[in-house]
């Protein structure tokens, strides 16, 4: 701004005009601008610092778990009993429960979410979309602890009534899995719908022009064209299901149990972390360190899924101009 005023006033200045004009264009250092840029850069670096802290904190405690507590990585990863009191630190029961509940969740969320995505992107009129889509988003905005309550007080009694109270135990993986599935359905639906809607209308028109019905177009043209986005959506949803805590903490039970029977209770990785850290936990104990070893494993698993999902989007996608 100052520069501008100078040049406007230039004719009345005593220096030769030519010189003034030239010097007015010289690059200047503006300390204020530089300061702000550095400040904003530091803000942006907080996220990097967060990631580093997570990795360092988890690894450091996990490392002392493996070195001080005398539990080898192999024992930890392949052991089939988790009983800290007796010195058994085999993480498989927890991993098994995590994966089992997540798979049940995917069994619920995939058909529901993909069906909803197909309906919203291929069939629904603008008005119906305007009603149904916010409803799905509402479902996504409900706190997870409320879903935990729903699992324990509604879904579990329902399952016990339908399948028999002697088959289905009060705490069970099935109920937790179903409700986690409900919880991630909006995620699957919105991410897949984004992918489906990104398919250019030209493809749909071409298919209609050849005499395809709406469903044939949706399933044979639009869906394959959006497949990378849909696969990525499923991976993100799976990662979310594995990291979900409150539903499994409330509904899946509190005993590590290596079982493939979904009617039995079994504690997941997240459920275990929540239960143990919710009690009186003293720093530096083996219990405390074991939590971080579980946390590191969980972090690795979800990170892998998330990275893989973005890799799929980037490398499998067809490029439309």
């Amino acid at each position, binding site marked *: 701004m100052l520069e501008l005023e100078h040049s406007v006033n230039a004719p009345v200045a005593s220096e030769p005009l030519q010189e003034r004009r030239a010097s007015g264009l010289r690059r200047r250092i503006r300390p204020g601008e530089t300061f702000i840029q550095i400040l904003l850069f530091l803000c942006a670096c907080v996220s990097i610092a967060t990631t580093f802290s997570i990795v360092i904190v988890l690894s450091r405690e996990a490392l002392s778990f493996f070195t001080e507590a005398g539990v080898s990585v192999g024992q930890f990863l392949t052991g089939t009993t988790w009983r800290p009191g007796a010195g058994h630190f085999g993480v498989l029961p927890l991993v098994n429960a995590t994966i089992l509940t997540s798979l049940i969740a995917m069994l619920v969320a995939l058909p529901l979410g993909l069906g909803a995505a197909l309906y919203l992107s291929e069939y629904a*009129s*603008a008005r119906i979309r305007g009603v149904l889509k916010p409803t799905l988003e509402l479902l996504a905005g409900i706190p997870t602890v409320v879903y935990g309550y729903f699992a324990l007080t509604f879904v579990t009694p329902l399952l016990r009534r339908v399948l028999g109270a002697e088959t289905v135990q009060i705490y069970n993986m099935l109920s937790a899995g179903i409700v986690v599935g409900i919880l991630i359905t909006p995620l699957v639906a919105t991410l897949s719908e984004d992918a489906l809607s990104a398919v*250019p209308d*030209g*493809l*749909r*028109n*071409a*298919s*209609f*022009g*050849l*005499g*395809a*019905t709406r469903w*044939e177009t949706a399933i*044979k*043209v639009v869906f*394959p*064209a959006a497949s990378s986005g849909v696969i990525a959506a499923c991976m993100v949803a799976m990662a979310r299901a594995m990291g979900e805590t409150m539903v499994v903490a409330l509904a899946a039970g509190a005993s590590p149990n290596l079982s493939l029977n979904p009617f039995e209770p079994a504690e997941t990785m997240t459920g275990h972390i929540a239960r143990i850290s919710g009690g009186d936990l003293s720093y530096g104990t083996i219990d405390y360190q074991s939590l971080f070893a579980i946390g590191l494993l969980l972090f690795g698993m979800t990170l892998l899924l998330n990275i893989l999902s973005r890799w799929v989007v980037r490398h499998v996608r*067809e*490029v*439309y101009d």
Partner: protein
Amino acid sequence: MNGEPACVIETRNLQINYGSFCAVKGVNLSIEPRTITALIGPSGCGKSTVLRSLNRMNDLVPGARVDGEVLFYGANLYAPEVDAVQVRRRIGMVFQKPNPFPKSIYENVAYGLRINGWRGTKASLDARVEAALRGAALWDEVKDKLQQSGLALSGGQQQRLCIARALAVEPEVILMDEPCSALDPIATLKIEQLMSELRQHYTIVIVTHNMQQAGRVADYTAFFLMDHDRAGQLIEYGPTSQIFSHPRDARTEAYISGRFG
């Protein structure tokens, strides 16, 4: 030509509305078999709308309403018992922008056959795909890479692939909506040559922005213009030579000689 009806498609007092907006009204056209008919006119005059109404693609536009009749061999396409899917199977369409499916070249061509209940052997399907690709003058360029993605082709090749895809289901009429507007001059030339060949077997209706193109390829030309309500109207329709050399309407002459549009 013996025994063929005088015209394949005939529109009677066709009027198309989008919601309360009247896009085009009062269109009476009769299209003869094995000819190329060009629809020309300035942008927004409703020529694409008319083209899309000929195989009921307007059904897919929310709020679009078609009044009047479109007769296909004398039967009204908009009669309640007529199935839009069947209409589109017999009246194919090629779009402005090349839009191959993200599938292999082979699957692109086979797509229409598969959805329409193809019952032949793999060998006959192969033969049919080859015939369609030959029909679109693309076979020699792609015969060694049928399993490659259709999106890997150049723009002109993609457009010919789309034509092959339309030919594969043996339509009787092919509608082309500005098929060359996204292509370079050499690719355009190839498509125009192709159209002249296809004319021996098919009835073609083409919308074009390019008057020279209409002059080069079309047997008949229909000139559209919008009136003061911005509703499109058919101003003049006749053999291309007559439209270009002795237009009856002053507005046609003004447009042809480049005074507006």
